């Protein structure tokens, strides 16, 4: 089941028990990443990007989180029903992750080399792993991967602590760590957003080149639409725990269909100048009392009665272009 995809998320609901009641964060997320595909997941703060990612990686704390519905398949295997031991074997070997803040993701009291060795040795413990590397081979592999991410003088960097490196170098080290065991799937959470644009451009260029040459599937999570446009093939736009639009990058950036996507794109300042739009009225809802139906309807200019009653399904407009909005459903059209 779901073998043709690297990652498949079906109707995922994630709730959190909080003091005020139940916070319904994810409300039926569908997402898939094909083999060798580069997919972006975009949305604003608090839209559930990170919760989605954490569920996939199995690092969501349960409780307080509850997963009432939903399935997550990684390469055909159901992540949510896996034992933690099985999950641990996948992590770091088949699936890797690049975190947002390179400062906090590295341990300041170990050298870069020690941390890289750890990652390589971890993969050695995998039962299916046939090879048995000597110390020398582990060292060589670490050096090779640092060269791959174009860090100058890898021998020296192996003996450095993270504090001695610049932000861009740290991010490169993190990419190296994520790639050293040759995973087939990579999740990158806002890579390079903590860095300056020139450095960010270098990092993104490097990342997409490595991913392409090695045929790794990647899910890139970001709030920066520009980053997705420059590196990804297909995009998911999320709002308040719902996927509102799915499309190939070129299609979406030419012609966003969902009112939220349209508002989002209009808010982005352009390098060519011109006025920016007024933004989107209102604010992201409180998840303990999330709006019924389409969660965007209280902020939507086109809201109709049906929008607050029924959650719009994802409908196909064109091949590979889906939108969840009543403006495009039959019921919505009839209502108008």
């Amino acid at each position, binding site marked *: 089941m779901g073998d043709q995809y690297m990652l498949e998320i079906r109707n995922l609901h994630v709730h959190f028990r909080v003091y005020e009641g139940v916070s319904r964060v994810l409300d039926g997320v569908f997402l898939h990443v094909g083999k060798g595909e580069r997919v972006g997941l975009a949305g604003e703060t608090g839209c559930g990007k990170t919760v989605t990612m954490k569920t996939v990686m199995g690092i969501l704390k349960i409780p307080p989180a509850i997963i009432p519905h939903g399935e997550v398949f990684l390469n055909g295997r159901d992540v949510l029903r896996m034992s933690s031991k099985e999950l641990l074997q996948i992590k770091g070997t088949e699936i890797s992750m690049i975190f947002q803040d390179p400062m906090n993701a590295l341990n300041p009291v170990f050298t870069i080399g020690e941390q890289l060795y750890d990652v390589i040795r971890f993969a050695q413990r995998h039962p299916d792993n046939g090879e048995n590397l000597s110390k020398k081979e582990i060292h060589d592999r670490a050096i090779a991967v640092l060269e791959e991410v174009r860090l100058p003088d890898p021998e020296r960097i192996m003996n450095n602590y993270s504090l001695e490196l610049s932000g861009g170098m740290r991010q490169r080290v993190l990419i190296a760590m994520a790639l050293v065991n040759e995973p087939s799937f990579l999740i990158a959470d806002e890579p390079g957003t903590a860095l300056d644009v020139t450095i*960010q451009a270098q990092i993104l260029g490097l990342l997409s080149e490595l991913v392409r040459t090695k045929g790794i599937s990647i899910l890139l999570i970001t709030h920066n639409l*520009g980053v997705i446009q420059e590196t990804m093939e297909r995009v998911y736009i999320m709002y308040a725990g719902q996927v509102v639009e799915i499309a190939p990058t070129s299609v979406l950036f030419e012609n966003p269909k969902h009112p939220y996507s349209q508002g989002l794109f209009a808010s982005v300042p*352009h390098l060519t100048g011109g006025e920016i739009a*007024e933004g989107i009225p209102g604010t992201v809802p409180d998840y303990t009392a999330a709006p019924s139906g389409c969660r965007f309807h209280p902020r939507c200019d086109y809201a109709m009665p049906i929008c607050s009653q029924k959650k719009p399904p994802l409908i196909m407009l064109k091949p590979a272009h889906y939108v969840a909005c009543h403006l495009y459903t039959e019921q919505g059209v009839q209502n108008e």
Partner: protein
Amino acid sequence: MSDLLLVVENLVKYFPIRVGFFRRQIGEVRAVEGASFDIKSGEIFGLVGESGSGKSTVGKTIVRIYKPTRGTIQFKGRNVTKLTKENLRFFKKEAQMVFQDPKSSLNPRRSVKSTLEDPLIVHKIAQNGRDRKRIVGDLLRMVELSPNYMYKYPSALSGGQRQRVAIARALAVNPSFIVLDEPTSALDVSVQAKIIRLLQQLQKGLHLSYLFISHDLSLMRTIASRTAVMYVGRIYELAQTEELFVSPLHPYTRTLISAVPVISKEERRVKPAKQSRGGEIPSPVNPPNGCAFHPRCSLADRICSQQLPDLMEVMPGHFVRCHHVSLNMPSAKGRGSRLVESTEGNKKN
């Protein structure tokens, strides 16, 4: 000239690096090494650069949060670098600042009302409680918040609302000049759009002048009328924003613009080719000799590492600090047409 609101000349700010029990000075961070520019009355002047370029230090030194090491700042014809404490109060009433992160720039233990009342008390604008309450309500309305928000605490506000309160605090003393230090970089784009619009409306309505500090070039293009590009403590290019983006002349400016992730084909078309060999911004403790960009620059040769180029006016109102600026100059024919375009831009402004 009477329409110049602020004139900054050769502003220098060093921070000492001290170690040990006796706080012995072992070096200095050369955050700003001679920045000169002026801001006209009613203008939005942009300052862009990467982190560590000294742009925030310039902003903070202008509003006298830091004391300048050297250089002069003239505000409405008065030299404010040598003001005594009493006279500084006049200046601080005229020049205000809005910080990047509204979460840390608002006191979490004070209500919005108490935060907004402070400047009114310090600058003796309203002495009795009823007046203050009325003014606080007006201020909140100015930043498009309901006056009921005055009883809330920052923790009950969203990021955008907090930044609105921070803007209201800056407006409380009725200033003519505001330094905006990355006012929207902690916010989402849809919220950013709303704050930017608010700032633009306030600027027109109250005839304010802004020094707008940001690392976001697309945003600068939208809001600033003139833009200066800073790198390791110095201004490397300064021009009308339109002109700066249409024909950037410094290799660093080109690299910066080319690195911006964009969302449309039109934008990709206007991006210049990058003129950099990679690398990162050098440390201001030990900046490179000559032009600070030379270790990253693809045009660099011997002279660049030996001699710091001057900031020269190569076209009217367009200043560049580069030895090889002629290589990036558009052809004479193209230059003529561009100049016409930029003067039209001026008229619009």
